[in-house]
């Protein structure tokens, strides 16, 4: 018995593409601007939380955009550009920035007992009116004090509004890990904000240091 001849084309069928890839550099650039550059603010905010330094954050974002642009042909239009860009940014940060970053010291999770803020303030300020008194910079400072793993999860989910699934993909961890990092990250953040609000006299409470 003879072997079956190979099919006429041994190439796997190419996935249906809604439109042919852009041909001119202008079309390529326009596509990139429409789908990638719109996420610039997100990339910059995430870069700032990772590097804790505006000039490093700018360099990191610029390098990310350059790399993304160079591999733009590998991106499928209409898929998750934000996640794709953030993955590039994060790898770049880990490989080239993390070592020399002078990120301020983060809280030591083993020495801090995070608690549920609501239980602490439900008698005094259950509507959370004290939140309004805390300035933006203090909130960012509190986020920056979170250990990196929690800071990333909180930033991608709570600040940038990504789903558990999307966050898991960017961080390359299971969804369950995202959930537990978010839980602990939020608790830690609440603990920091509570301490700050108490130290400023926004609420009476009793500092949990």
């Amino acid at each position, binding site marked *: 018995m003879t072997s079956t001849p190979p099919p006429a084309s041994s190439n796997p069928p190419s996935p249906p593409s809604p439109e042919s890839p852009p041909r001119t550099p202008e079309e390529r650039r326009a596509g990139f601007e429409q789908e990638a550059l719109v996420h610039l603010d997100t990339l910059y905010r995430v870069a700032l939380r990772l590097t804790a330094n505006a000039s490093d954050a700018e360099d990191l974002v610029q390098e990310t955009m350059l790399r993304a642009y160079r591999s733009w042909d590998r991106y499928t239009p209409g898929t998750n550009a934000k996640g794709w860009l953030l993955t590039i940014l994060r790898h770049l940060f880990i490989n080239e920035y993390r070592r020399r970053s002078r990120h301020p010291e983060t809280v030591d999770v083993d020495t801090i007992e995070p608690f549920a803020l609501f239980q602490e303030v439900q008698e005094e300020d259950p509507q959370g009116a004290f939140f309004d008194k805390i300035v933006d910079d203090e909130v*960012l400072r509190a986020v920056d004090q979170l250990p990196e793993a929690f800071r990333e999860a909180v930033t991608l989910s709570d600040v940038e509004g990504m789903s558990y699934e999307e966050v898991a993909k960017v961080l390359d961890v299971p969804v369950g890990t995202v959930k537990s990092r978010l839980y602990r990250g939020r608790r830690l953040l609440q603990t920091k904000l509570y301490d700050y609000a108490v130290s400023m006299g926004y609420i009476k409470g009793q500092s949990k240091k």
Partner: protein
Amino acid sequence: MRCRECVEHLYEYLDREVTPELETEIRAHIQKCPPCSEHFDFETLFLKFVRVRCRAQGAPATLRRRILEQLLEE
């Protein structure tokens, strides 16, 4: 559903990551349980507070310009 179970799913519920069945159960519990309702409202406020305050900042205009110039050179 008991309060304990309800609060256990608090963040997943607020993050819209629960099944429709669980969502219905939780919503029904919150509606008839003032303490849980207050707790959920507080956490909703907290998450909104973090989002709004941390999103106040965007990329500087100079960065956008630098990137656009860089793309033209590629």
